[in-house]
């Protein structure tokens, strides 16, 4: 598989008072074209920071490198070039479902009328039929996520960064959304980086699962998921799935423990 996006030596620190808080430490990652990579790790390990850097919104410390399609690029090269979906859906309450969905396309210069037509055609696939004229305040959490996803898909870029898109959903809705996302993804096979806290979700969705360490975040573990596509619900009880899950649980528990211990050190507390 050709490499779509490769980062080498990405570090990031923030100055907190006189101390430097290191968020990312020498992160390297290679994602193939059309690959679905899930990223897990304890909270505060810098996953979202990594996304923010990839999206070109945050400048990393000097020294990192970015390659797109094998070519070396400036680190903010992807600003405006990836379909980025942050943790919160960030729908605008004054825009209807349809107009929220076309926001990214509209900013991208697609005429409103054209964008609206395209979004209208996708409403079915995003299970939003009949809700075009509703406002976000009238929707359930799952529907809001689908609107945010439609907005992300409407911004037609071959790389998607999805930051815990299903984090706030209940288990049942989440399972439905996962299967639905895979269906939508199979249709056009864009390159996806997907952050989650949920190990089942990470294995079920991903071609590869990447685990980040406790802060400062490093790539701790990187494994291919030994399951065929298309994925089905029954797979979560297969031995391969369970074995990988056990392995991941072990690694993540170890990292979470470090985070927990760091939080409980009386001198290192942060507000």
């Amino acid at each position, binding site marked *: 598989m050709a490499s779509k996006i490769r980062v080498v030596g990405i570090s990031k620190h923030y100055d907190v008072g006189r101390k430097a808080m290191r968020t990312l430490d020498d992160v390297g990652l290679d994602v193939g074209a059309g690959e679905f990579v899930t990223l897990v790790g304890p909270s505060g390990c810098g996953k979202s920071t990594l996304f923010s850097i990839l999206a070109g919104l945050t400048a990393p410390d000097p020294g990192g490198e970015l390659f797109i399609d094998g070519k070396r690029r400036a680190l903010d090269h992807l600003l405006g070039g990836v379909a980025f979906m*942050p943790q919160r859906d960030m729908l605008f309450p004054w825009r209807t479902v349809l107009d929220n969905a076309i926001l990214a396309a509209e*900013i991208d210069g697609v005429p409103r009328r054209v964008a609206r037509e395209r979004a209208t055609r996708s409403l079915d696939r995003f299970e939003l039929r009949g809700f075009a004229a509703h*406002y976000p305040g009238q929707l359930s959490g799952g529907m809001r996520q689908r609107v945010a996803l439609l907005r992300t898909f409407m911004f037609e870029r071959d790389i998607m960064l999805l930051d815990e898109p299903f984090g706030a959903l209940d288990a049942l809705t989440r399972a439905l959304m996962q299967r639905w996302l895979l269906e939508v993804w199979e249709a056009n096979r864009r390159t996806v980086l997907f952050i989650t806290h949920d190990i089942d979700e990470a294995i079920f969705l991903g071609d590869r699962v990447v685990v980040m360490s406790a802060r400062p975040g490093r790539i701790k573990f990187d494994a291919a998921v030994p399951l065929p596509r298309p994925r089905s619900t029954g797979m979560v009880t297969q031995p391969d799935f369970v074995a990988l899950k056990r392995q991941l649980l072990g690694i993540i528990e170890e990292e979470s423990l470090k985070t927990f211990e760091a939080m409980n050190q009386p001198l290192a507390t942060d507000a």
Partner: protein
Amino acid sequence: MMDRLARVAAPAATVLVFLLLWQGSVDAFHVSPDKLPAPAAILATIWHGRIAFASAIGTTLAEALIGLAGGTLIGIASGVLLSQVRLLERMFLPYLVASQAVPIIAFGAIIIMWFGNGISSKAIIAVYLSFFPVAVNTLAGISAIEPSEIGLLRSFGAGRLAILFKLQLPATLPAIFTAIRLGASLALVGAIVGEWFGATQGLGVVLLTAMFDYRVPQLWAAIVLTGATGTALYGLVVLLQRRIAWWQAEA
């Protein structure tokens, strides 16, 4: 339905009871109309002078509306400008605040000298009073927008103008309208105070002449009508707010 009815009926009942008590005590204690006329007498005075009153209201309302519109536009423009250029905020915000510490009364005479005793001088005073809350709320509203929301738009390739028109301004509209509501009352005060410095017509003129001529029922009629005008102006802004910035700010 019952709920809506009660929401209108309950305050209306308060006013009715208040008016009846007023009328009843004036009648019962034989209060001189020179001190406090009965509501019926005030209504009669209003009805009697309805044409003159209507023209006075028209003049003052026009001044206040022009002033409020101008103040809103200037307020939004300066709020946006200060929010976009940090240096401008540092340079001008302190003086903007200080400008409000100077009572408009101090400037009234000068403004009449410069702009004449027509409608424009009053509108200018109304602008001066109403632009400040709008400017401050615009600036505060834009500053309160989450950086992550701006980041989202930037990730879509948005420049400053797109961020301003697709996020910052619409997100700030509810705060702007709150300020316009405040500005509406201030604009009316500005128009009336302006009329006191020099004018030939308007509610302020009616108030002053009634006072100098010691025509108490006339004075009370003007007070009631000024109150009604203020309420109507405020109501108009609320109506616009419900149409334009109807959504609740989200947590």
